[in-house]
């Protein structure tokens, strides 16, 4: 879809790399530019394939960088910066996630790049954005989850807030950055000019709070975490082989729900209305626990779907990789990596007509495409490349 869009991905870490991965999934040509030596710091992030801490075996890195070319380049020196600018001559988009204090004056700040490359879209993904009092604050995922406000609502109401799963603030920011980057590319069709896209990780996740914010400024209420009391519907509840989410949503009458769970006492008319389920919540929860104990997750989930109910079930990574539905939708791809080996990789979130899902190339080895990119593309000959390698520039 994005055939012809040329993207440079400077990383580091998760958010900018996920942004560039999404662009690659939609067909953009992405070159990952990493510092020589240890490469993108994501290469040091576990877990590792076979628990072997190796630069080419970081599972997060392997996931985040499929479908990209990879070069190594030290652009902190003048020679390297010159080569980066040559790459930028051939690029539409630069994605980076360095602290604003680091990019300033380094030759890769937007104010510098826009002078030499006015058509370039530069997307910067940082914890708190390019301005404001927290601009230079240090953060990891737990900090941005907390300061987005989402974490306050995660977990149980009688315990401490619970960090969101798997660096979610950074993945959400990466997806937002991909969307905003494409908006800027679209705007360039009419303006002819590039621009700076300033993405704040904490704000991307804060944008999820379409209920908690009006709860506060419409009625002074701080929405709570998962309530410990109540009927148990719409919450994770134990079943025989794990956890399920029983639900009364989906426009079906209560009888359908009671029938499905299969406990006669649930047909009590006191439970038939929302108000009744609130008033008799504890009693209902005890019955629900008793009824669900007769069910395994998957049969209950399938029976719910067939009755047009919307129950959920807690699945782990093994369940998802074996899921026949995702398999039927072509979500998974076998990708073979020269060092890490072959594995089943998850694919794109959406299926697009006119653009069949394709198996992406594996994440690049550090500097894997130096010859293709610096040689074939930029025209450096073998002697020049050897000199650059000797000088530690590539």
């Amino acid at each position, binding site marked *: 879809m994005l055939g012809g869009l040329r993207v440079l991905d400077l990383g580091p870490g998760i958010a900018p790399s996920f942004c560039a991965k999404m662009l690659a999934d939609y067909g953009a040509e992405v070159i990952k530019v990493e510092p020589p030596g240890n490469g993108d710091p994501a290469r040091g992030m576990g877990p590792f394939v076979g628990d072997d801490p190796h630069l080419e075996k970081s599972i997060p890195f392997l996931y985040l960088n499929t479908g990209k070319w990879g070069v190594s380049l030290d652009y902190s020196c003048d020679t390297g910066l010159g080569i980066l600018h040559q790459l930028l001559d051939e690029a539409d988009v630069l994605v980076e996630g360095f602290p604003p204090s680091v990019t300033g004056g380094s030759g890769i700040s937007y104010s510098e790049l826009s002078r030499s490359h006015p058509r370039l879209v530069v997307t910067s993904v940082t914890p708190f954005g390019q301005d404001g009092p927290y601009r230079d604050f240090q953060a990891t995922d737990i900090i941005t989850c907390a300061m987005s406000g989402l974490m306050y609502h995660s977990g149980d109401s009688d315990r401490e807030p619970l960090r969101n799963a798997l660096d979610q603030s950074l993945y959400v920011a990466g997806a937002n950055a991909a*969307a905003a980057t494409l908006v800027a590319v679209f705007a360039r069709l009419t303006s002819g000019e590039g621009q700076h896209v*300033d993405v704040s990780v904490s704000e991307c996740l804060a944008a999820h709070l*379409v209920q908690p914010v009006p709860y506060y400024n419409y009625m002074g209420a701080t929405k709570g975490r998962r309530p410990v009391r109540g009927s148990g519907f719409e919450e994770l509840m134990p079943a025989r082989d794990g956890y399920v989410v029983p639900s009364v949503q989906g426009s079906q009458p209560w009888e359908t729900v009671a029938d499905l769970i299969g406990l006669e006492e649930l047909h009590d008319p006191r439970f038939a209305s929302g108000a009744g389920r609130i008033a008799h919540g504890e009693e209902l929860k005890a019955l629900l626990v008793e009824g669900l104990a007769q069910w395994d997750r998957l049969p209950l989930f399938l029976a719910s*779907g067939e009755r047009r109910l919307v129950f959920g079930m807690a699945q782990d*990574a093994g369940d998802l990789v074996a899921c026949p539905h995702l398999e039927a939708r072509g*979500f998974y791809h076998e990708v073979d990596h020269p060092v890490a080996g072959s594995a089943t990789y998850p694919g794109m979130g959406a*299926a697009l007509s006119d653009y069949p899902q394709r198996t992406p190339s594996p994440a690049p080895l550090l500097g894997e495409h130096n010859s293709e990119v610096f040689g074939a593309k930029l025209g450096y000959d073998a002697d020049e490349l050897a000199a650059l390698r000797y000088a530690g520039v590539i």
Partner: protein
Amino acid sequence: MSGRPLENIRVVDLSRVFAMPFAGANLADLGAEVIKIDTCQAQFMETTRTITGPFPDNQPGELWWEQGGTFQTLNRGKRSLTLDLRSDEAQAILKELVSVSDIVLENFTPRVMARFGLDYASLRAVKPDLIMVSNTGYGHSGPWSSFGAMASALEPTHGTGAFMGYLEDNESGSLRSGNVPNKMGNSYTDFLATWTALVSVMAALLHRHETGRGTWVDLAMYQAGASFIGEGLLAYSFNGERARRMGNRHSSMAPHGCFPCFGEDQWVTIAVRDDEDWLAFCRAIGASELAADPRYATTQQRIEKQDELESIVSNWTRQLTSYEVMEILQCVGVPAGPVFTAGQSLADPHFRHRGFFEQVTHPAETGLGDKAYIGRGWKFSSSTAGILGPAPLLGESNDYALRQVLGKTEDQISVLANANTIGTEPVGGRPPSQVPMDTQVELGWVAAFDPDFVG
């Protein structure tokens, strides 16, 4: 500044509830003309117009269908055309509208869209380069495609609960990884669909510009959700790791967690990334003996001893506000930040400086006054983006859409009005009953009520 990037794009927004309406709201912020297809038949109105709320002071007023705070957030800056899609006339009007639009957003089940004759094949017949997002729980293909879904039940189904859960005590009294899944809640999956839709729509607009071809986006929230935890799925593929529930701890940082602060239900997060952070942390809390203690010198040692380190950290944080902890630790370069409540976010100086919450003035008859709404996590150096105005009143743009856009006559419009195909007030329906605030507090839906809040 140049203009809004999507100024010449028209969107027909048939979608309901959270995920796609919010995608439509973002497109409106970017300048697209988003025509929301509403209905004046109260029984078919979307729940965010009727029951979701929250209503001002928890009291739905005379115009209750205009007053929900979540509805306002999700539908800001749109126009509203009411159509009763059960009628052939309404379906014909919708097709006419699609023929002069660029994008359709919808989240009906595959069955409903086909019944209305509004599936992608039918709409592409009237608009060959149409871009359409069909958002469903499980997508339009595959064995589960007929299943309905709600984000609250979808979230653990697509796997977040495998990577989120409290630590549990083991026999020896120390903490170990948990077996019980937990949730982010707040319809988490809906927003993953929102962002996936935005990326897809923008890619499709660029594709249309290059090739003249449209795109149908078959967006399955289950699949979109799984793509956001892809790293966890790949860890299973390579290592057979099925789940990782570490509470607020981290596999390569310690101390790392969420600690209690001075005040009721106040928390701060801290991440000590490496030895340099650890020394800075010890100095900042005035515990030079800890910095010198060889038992805590390396990350590996601190991970092994984190039960005891966490009680040391908590004893310090408990005496301070969450903002004080942030300031003390950020001064020495250690990641730390409060767990914000919505009230704290609205008042926070950084969010205010960035203009993240945008002020909207509502029509007087809604009684909503001026309110702040969440914006977007991105800013442009030259394009304009921002909330254009409140959510539309029901049927506010009937005349605009039917007369100006589609060229209908007065007579044609009054026929539609007489049949209640169009209208500006609900037919049937009544103000939703609200659970009283003290009951909501008792049930734990609301953690705290602040009678002196600033609206």
